[in-house]
């Protein structure tokens, strides 16, 4: 026995109360981990954005298009390694009208060059390049829509009305998290040729790979300067900034999740505070005995804070132990399979686990600060309640 073990012995003193507190805090930790994982999974595109890619869009808005010919100018800009383009198609599967997934019209060859993390078998690649109605589908989306190579699928266009027939040329995965595995990618030519003359040769945005990531901002500025004299100006930014601007559209949701996370931390504090206050009040006389034996106020405060730290740590560990099966392998799997376009990688980040454990520990200690100070300030006789 030593002073530290003496401090932690009290954790198991009122087992029923401790068990309820541990369970309550663990549930709060699970909720906290889940919400933080929602945020981190949505931020994954920002966090894992490629450093050597820049996005070029219409200066006014994402929804306004650029002339097709801009791609040639971008490719000729010094520092640009390669470039491709894409149009947001906005297709829906009439068989699964509730499912949302990104459908993009792309230039297959240059797209695969710029997005080299797209992993597709050579046979699928050749099939896609050769078939103008061909499409490659992310493995998560393929699972969701139950698509296999060789299938024919008809999508209804929301931006480009009509029924569009595609052949599934291949299923892709990704070697890095910067690529969403729930996209539907098809030939831009197929879209462009089907459009009336006045709508042809318009592209949504350009993505360029630069030779030197450290010069990405300089290349972006050079591209924008080039188009400044044109009738349509551009706004170029890193892939990370581009993804961030997409994230900005969901800022309200993220703010709400952050607020709820804060409320959960407050609940943690109250759960701990209630348990510690009750425990300390019940043991006041014992603290008086310890003081009588020669222990100092700092020892009393240390015992209480040590007990709170042990409780906080135990609750945090229990919460994390529950989080992995519930959040990562339960809810996470379901979300990835059913909402892969919004949360393609629903995994508990190490930083989230560390935050949960850290907050549990810190809030446990914080909740005991006032009881600890009060108990340590009691005179021995008051603590012993002996004033007659």
């Amino acid at each position, binding site marked *: *026995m030593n002073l530290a073990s003496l401090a932690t*012995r009290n954790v198991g003193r009122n087992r029923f109360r401790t068990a309820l507190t541990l369970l309550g805090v663990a549930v709060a930790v699970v909720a906290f981990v889940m919400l933080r994982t929602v945020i981190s999974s949505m931020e994954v595109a920002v966090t894992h954005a490629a450093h050597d890619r820049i996005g070029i869009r219409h200066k006014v808005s994402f929804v306004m298009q650029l002339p097709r010919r801009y791609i040639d100018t971008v490719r000729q800009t010094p520092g640009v390694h390669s470039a491709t383009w894409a149009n947001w198609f906005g297709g829906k599967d009439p068989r699964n009208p509730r499912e949302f997934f990104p459908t993009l019209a792309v230039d297959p060859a240059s797209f695969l060059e710029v997005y080299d993390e797209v992993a597709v078998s050579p046979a699928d690649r050749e099939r896609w390049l050769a078939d103008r109605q061909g499409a490659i589908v992310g493995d998560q989306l393929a699972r969701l829509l139950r698509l296999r190579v060789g299938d024919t699928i008809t999508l209804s266009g929301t931006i480009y009305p009509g029924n569009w027939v595609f052949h599934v040329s291949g299923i892709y995965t990704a070697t890095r998290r910067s690529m969403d595995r729930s996209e539907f990618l098809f030939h831009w030519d197929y879209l462009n040729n089907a459009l009336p003359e006045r709508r042809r040769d318009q592209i949504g945005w350009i993505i360029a790979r630069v030779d030197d990531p450290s010069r990405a901002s300089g290349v972006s500025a050079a591209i924008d300067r080039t188009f400044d004299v044109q009738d349509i100006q551009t706004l170029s930014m890193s892939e990370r900034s581009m993804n961030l601007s997409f994230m900005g559209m969901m800022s309200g949701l993220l703010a709400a999740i952050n607020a709820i996370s804060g409320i959960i931390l407050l609940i943690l504090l109250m759960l701990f505070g209630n348990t510690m206050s009750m425990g300390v009040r019940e043991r006041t006389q014992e603290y008086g*005995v310890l003081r009588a034996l020669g222990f100092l106020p700092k020892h009393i405060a240390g015992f209480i804070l040590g007990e709170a730290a042990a409780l906080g740590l135990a609750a945090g560990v229990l919460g994390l132990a529950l989080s992995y099966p519930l959040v990562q392998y339960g809810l996470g799997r379901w979300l990835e399979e059913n909402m892969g376009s919004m949360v393609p990688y629903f995994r508990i980040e190490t930083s989230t686990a560390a935050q949960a454990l850290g907050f549990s520990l810190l809030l446990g200690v914080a909740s005991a600060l006032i009881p600890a100070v009060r108990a340590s300030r009691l005179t021995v006789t008051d603590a012993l309640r*002996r004033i007659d």
Partner: protein
Amino acid sequence: MSSTEESAAAPMVELTHVTKTFHRGAETLTVLDGLSLSIAEGSFEALMGPSGSGKSTLLNLVAGLDRATSGKVRVAGQDLTAMTDGDLAAFRARYIGFIFQSYNLMPVLTALENVELPLLLTKLPSADRKRRAATALRVVGLEDRADHYPRQLSGGQEQRVAIARALVNDPKIIVADEPTGDLDRKSADQILALLEKLNKDFKKTVVMVTHDPEAASHARVTHHLNKGAFQ
């Protein structure tokens, strides 16, 4: 009976014109009123009196648990009135052994660990602490209950563990506050016999507060208090 018994030994406890007052709102309550007392080293003395007479307050002053409002308190050659709170804590750990009415053992600790508790404040290695705690338990006849928790012991056994705890740091004085108050007669007699043994065989000075004349009869000197003064 008021104590006037003379002793050749140097006083272990010496209180001179000690006053203790408490404030309850606007009211000032004088619990000890200019009280003087001398207790010789190696003595066994009892403090008796009705509730509110000030006997526990007096015991608290002797034990360094509380401070006198005025007057002088010297115990074991130390002037307690001049000490800081930290000094008083160190004084209690070094010179005083406490025995409480309701034993006040830590329920999460075994008998051996409860006895070892005061030694955590020393620099003794763990093995030495355990050896000394086991010796103290042997003195009170509970070496076979070392691994028992307080809930597994009878009231008399709990109080004997508390006595071992009071004894383990080899204090000069044992202060006992109603040590038999919660015990049946047989257990009380065992505890009183043990206190006598500590006094006679281990040369400890014992100061005991009690309501029980039978318990007081074990002391060599009995002081009667009433309204903060000796009768």
